[in-house]
């Protein structure tokens, strides 16, 4: 493949991964469950695009496989599964009381992204020398931001999206550093993601049925001795 094409593919990949980072920030900050889900879908498509671009660049069939699996499983099957398993009204819910307000959360997210860059640098030096793409630091940033989402969110659906976004981040980094992961494994990982959605959807529905809320972050009865025994005294 000619140098100009390679250059073009690399630039396109840089654009795609840049947008990926933006969606990761968006998931931290977005208040509405539906918005979170949409951002996640966009993110998965960007991951697929990056995989396809890298596949073109390195002539790797396995990477096309990753792209295809991502296009099918996440934007289509995940929302469908969620609709089947969890109550519909939680999509429209706005989450007003996050653990941190949005500007603070975004500032911390920014710090995490910078940290990810420095974590990614030594890794980049270690992998194949021809590769100096943005996938590694941005993938790590996606992973960290997903984990951060889990700590600031309280509603069930954004928490689930945070988990899936972590996996997206790991993959964005993974497709760049390890290019020939067996397709069978890719498929298994994708299936696994769907089982996560299913189980957590079922759990969410049960929580809503039994407790009447989906703000799972507010469940905090299980603690060590003093608090619980004090409650017991009161109820007696």
């Amino acid at each position, binding site marked *: 493949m000619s140098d100009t094409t390679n250059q073009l593919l690399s630039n396109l990949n840089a654009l795609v991964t840049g947008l990926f980072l933006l969606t990761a920030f968006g998931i931290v900050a977005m208040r509405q469950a539906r918005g979170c889900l949409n951002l996640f879908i966009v993110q998965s498509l960007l991951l697929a695009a990056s995989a396809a671009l890298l596949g073109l660049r390195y002539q790797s069939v396995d990477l096309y496989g990753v792209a295809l699996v991502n296009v099918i499983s996440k934007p289509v099957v995940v929302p469908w599964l969620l609709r089947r398993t969890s109550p519909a009204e939680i999509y429209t819910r706005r989450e007003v009381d996050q653990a941190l307000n949005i500007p603070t959360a975004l500032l911390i997210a920014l710090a995490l992204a910078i940290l990810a860059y420095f974590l990614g640098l030594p890794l980049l030096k270690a992998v194949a020398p021809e590769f100096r793409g943005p996938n590694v630091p941005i993938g790590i940033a996606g992973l960290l931001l997903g984990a951060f989402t889990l700590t600031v969110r309280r509603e069930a659906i954004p928490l689930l999206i945070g988990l899936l976004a972590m996996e997206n981040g790991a993959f964005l980094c993974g497709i760049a550093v*390890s290019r020939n992961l067996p397709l069978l494994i890719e498929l298994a*990982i994708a299936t696994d993601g769907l089982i996560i959605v299913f189980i957590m959807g079922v*759990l969410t529905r049960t929580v809503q049925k039994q407790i009447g809320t989906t703000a799972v972050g507010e469940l905090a009865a299980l603690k060590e001795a003093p608090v619980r025994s004090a409650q017991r005294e009161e109820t007696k």
Partner: protein
Amino acid sequence: MSVIAILLLPLVAAALVCLPFKKVWASGVTVTSSSAVLVLTARIAWMVSLDKTVVSGLKAGVLKWISVDGLSALILLLIAFIGAAAAIFSVGYMAHGNYKPKKLRLYYANYNLFIFSMLAIPVFSEPTLVWIVVELTTLASALLVSFENTREALEAAWKYVVLSLMGAGFALLGFLLLFAAMQASGSKEAYTWSGLVNAAHSMPPVLLQMAFLLILIGLGTKVGLVPMHTWLPDAHSQAPSPVCALLSGIETSVILYVILRLFPVMQASPNSHAGTWAIVLGLISVGAAAFLLMQVSDYKRMFAFSTIEHMGIILTAVGLGASAANYGAVWQIVSHCVTKSFCFFAAGAVLLSAGTREISAVRGLIRRSPAAGAALVFGALGITGAPPLAVFLSEFSILKAGLAQKHYIATGLLAVFIVIAFFGIMMQVNRMAFGVRENDSDAAVPDDHSGYSGHFTPGNRFHLPFSCSLALILTAVPVLVLGLYIPPPLQGLLSQAAAVLTMK
């Protein structure tokens, strides 16, 4: 071939229990299939102890990654043993709960899937595939943790799933980096545990170390290492007792096994600090758990904290890193598994007879239900390492290996924490079994949500269901015997397992 049968049996059982027959059907199928799995794994373990690696012999699909060596055979045997014992315990325990038949079928289906996912971890030798089955263990057990559908159980299940999967996200990146390191080493070997060890010396150290740390933290969350342990006491106390026995007794060890698999790889790589990481993280876990043990108000939580303590002990032992310490570590895995599941069966028996999880509400248990009381005391003695029971010997061999390695500070701290945990547990259990209620009118508060109504008046004796007693006796035998005598085949298996961990 029998390896594949081991994996197929629980899956078939999971499908069969969904058939709408009588209540006995689901439990019967589960007990039968887990006993069959136990027999098959015993055969495999026997073959492995005679110095053979068992492979499937098939080259198609995921089956080509099946291989069982000393360490995996040991873990496999433990899963099968605890799985069978917990299935037997479930029969009587779940019948006591008056659940609807549909709910019971759900329980047994999930139970079998959970067993399947755990059995698959040691059987497969491809690291990414192992990561996937680790995820499956979380997902299959989530609905078991939330089984009672109380507010607390749902909270526990939710924390369990979110934190475990969050850890799994980090571990996924770790495994992908491990794969990258394997490719960068230029090795032509297959990407399996043994292939990794052989290629380790030419891997880029930075990739390998990053991968190791991500996996240690990620899977360490699921093992319950402090400070990622917060979900563990919740999940391990809220689930039905047989499930607690599985979660605490074996699941944590199985996940720890995956981490342990990386130690030979790290040792083969120049300039790795895997041992130091393990000792630091292990000692923090042991220490924190030993002190947290003392302030629990719920006896199932107490045993859950003791699991964190024991995971720390095993990790520290592997961190010490000589072949004697590794032997101690695998022995500790065995003794912890059998003893901890016994403890949770005992806790289940106490819950059946007393109807509450509160330590302060259970007094004079030995008079109300001699079987449950005796089991509780025996379990507590076993798990805290009182001589001559199994845990005592394994802990002793770890401490001895630590001193021989001249790790005086680490070994000393370990010994101190173990003693603290001993007093922490024995004090509580002593009061529960032999204590006298201070105020007689202050009758036991039955746990609000559990279906049991065991009001606590001395004189009205409680009789354990037969299957519960049977499971207690089954697990008590190894706790007692392994402290005095290790049969030669097991001895061979233990040495094989320790050899896997030790660099040649």
